């Protein structure tokens, strides 16, 4: 009756063999192709570095002014501008300016990357049910798998540094924009689409003239979520060598520095709130045609 109380599991040696095989295969794969893959990501690295340099080398008053200007263009809200201005002054005053700029740089690059990869995938999913059934489980995995688990292969392949950090952030942050692009396009009124078709619009005319414009508010909700998730990854990404606000938080955790952790943590929160309010405003302004 032993088989009832104890699960009939694989024997120890077999299991060890199995794990060892997987590890060895991946190690040899990363030994053989690691460099090639690293080279492949080189342009991304230089892009990220350039971006970071711009943020770090620009005199702070100009940076603040530029940020406020962009916030104004996007939100047209005095309240948001005032809040943003105050927040950045505080961040700077408490000595977190450089870390904040690094974090901003990686978040922006990650978001841009997610948009450029995620929106086309979302469109492909909306176009075909087959693609949707294929990609949905992948998104599920990306969203639920503990981030540390996919950090292992990423680090084995690319080592520690900015690019693996960026990839880790993107894996975590890309699902919302893919999902919401797909959803937004699928929710476009069938009647309106039929009208476009009846006038002889081709696939691209329907996509860019009707579907994407009408899905834009939903797509933007996806962008908003993607930015939020990217910010949430900042601390974890700092474990594999990404500069920024995550690093002091990590140090604070291991050394029990309450003030350091709290300050940097709050700086991340402030960034999140600013990003969220500004992008939500953009989303709302895109739906202007819906009001009165």
């Amino acid at each position: 009756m032993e088989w009832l109380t104890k699960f009939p599991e694989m024997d120890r040696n077999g299991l060890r063999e199995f794990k060892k095989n997987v590890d060895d295969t991946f190690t040899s794969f990363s030994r053989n192709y690691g460099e090639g893959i690293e080279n492949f990501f080189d342009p991304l690295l230089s892009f990220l570095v350039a971006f970071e340099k711009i943020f770090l080398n620009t005199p702070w008053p100009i940076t603040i002014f530029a940020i406020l200007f962009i916030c104004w263009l996007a939100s047209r809200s005095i309240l948001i501008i005032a809040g943003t201005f105050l927040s950045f002054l505080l961040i700077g005053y408490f000595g977190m300016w450089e870390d904040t700029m690094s974090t901003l740089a990686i978040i922006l690059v990650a978001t841009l990357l997610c948009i450029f990869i995620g929106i086309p995938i979302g469109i492909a999913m909306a176009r075909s049910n087959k693609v949707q059934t294929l990609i949905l489980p992948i998104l599920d995995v990306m969203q639920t798998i503990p981030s540390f688990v996919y950090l292992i292969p990423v680090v084995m392949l690319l080592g520690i540094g900015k690019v693996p950090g960026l990839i880790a952030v993107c894996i975590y942050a890309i699902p919302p924009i893919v999902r919401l692009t797909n959803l937004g396009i699928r929710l476009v009124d069938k009647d309106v689409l039929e009208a476009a078709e009846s006038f002889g619009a081709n696939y691209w005319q329907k996509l860019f003239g009707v579907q994407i414009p009408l899905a834009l508010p939903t797509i933007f909700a996806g962008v908003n979520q993607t930015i939020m998730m990217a910010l949430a990854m900042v601390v974890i990404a700092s474990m594999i060598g990404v500069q920024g606000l995550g690093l002091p938080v990590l140090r604070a955790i291991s050394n029990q520095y309450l003030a350091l952790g709290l300050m940097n943590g709050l700086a991340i929160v402030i960034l999140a709130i600013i990003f969220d309010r500004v992008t939500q405003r953009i989303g709302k302004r895109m739906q202007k045609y819906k009001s009165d």
Partner: protein
Amino acid sequence: MNNFIKIKNLYKIFGDKTTDALNLVKNGTSKEELLEKTNCVLGLNNINLDIPKGKIHVIMGLSGSGKSTLIRHLNRLIEPTFGEITIDGVNVLELNNKELLEYRQKNMSMVFQKFALFPHKTILENISYGLKVQNISEEICQEKSQFWLKRVGLEGYDNYFPNQLSGGMQQRVGLARALATDAEILLMDEAFSALDPLIRAEMQDVLIDLQLELKKTIVFITHDLDEALKIGERISILRDGYVVQDDNPQKIILYPSDNYVSDFIKDINRSRVIKAKSIMTKSVSIKKERVPVIDSEMVLEEVLQEINKTKKYYVLVKDKKDKIIGRITLNELLTGIQRPRKEIEKYA
């Protein structure tokens, strides 16, 4: 020119095993039986229709009778299971993808029941959509859409968004959008059904007015008999996907082909719809007597008033050229107003 749009043996079956289902339908399986046997839904069942050029042809039926399905076959928004559609000599079903797009752009446009305007585009952008799709220059788009905006009576609304307009105004935009491409054929899918009665009547007048001038070939779908009688020069009545009667409006009222059609027409005010020419006794050798002479297009209600004025209890009927072409007695008039016998017994 009489058979501008020709539909021959058109079948549409929704479902998976359509070839099997088609054979069953051709052998006389009914809609219900088909659904039970093959899980397929019969949309259109052996439609044969000739639609003349430059006329308003109404296709009428209750919901589920296949009328919206039928009209979508004309521009192939729905592909048929079997059959033939030729429009002005072109076999529409043989067009390839590119030709089909061009055909939709140039030859037919559509007006929808729920307007289906583009909510994110302004009124002017909506009207010019059909032209923009054809990559016509901005200048011409502007000019044409401005013209049609004015023509449907919405001058000054250029930069409004659709949801800032009332239903009737939105459908004017829908109409202008369809007319802007100068397409020969106008497909109207219950275009006025979503409007309230007063606005609906107003839009019908707008359409009739435009048609006097434009002479388009209009295929108009409706479930409203009054509307069909008002604007239709010919009416096809659809039931469960097949045509039960295809006739001019007067004949449909006077000689309904079966109970389904009689059911349809039972509530209409016959004296206001039937015209003198439909019930008169044709006779050219009538001497001009001192009785009222009425126009052949006059409806019976007015004929009754004219007849009442005379002691002879009949009137003469003249055509457009003032030529006497017939006579209506009081008896004939009463028979015309009275519902057909069979029908009265049925509802007694």
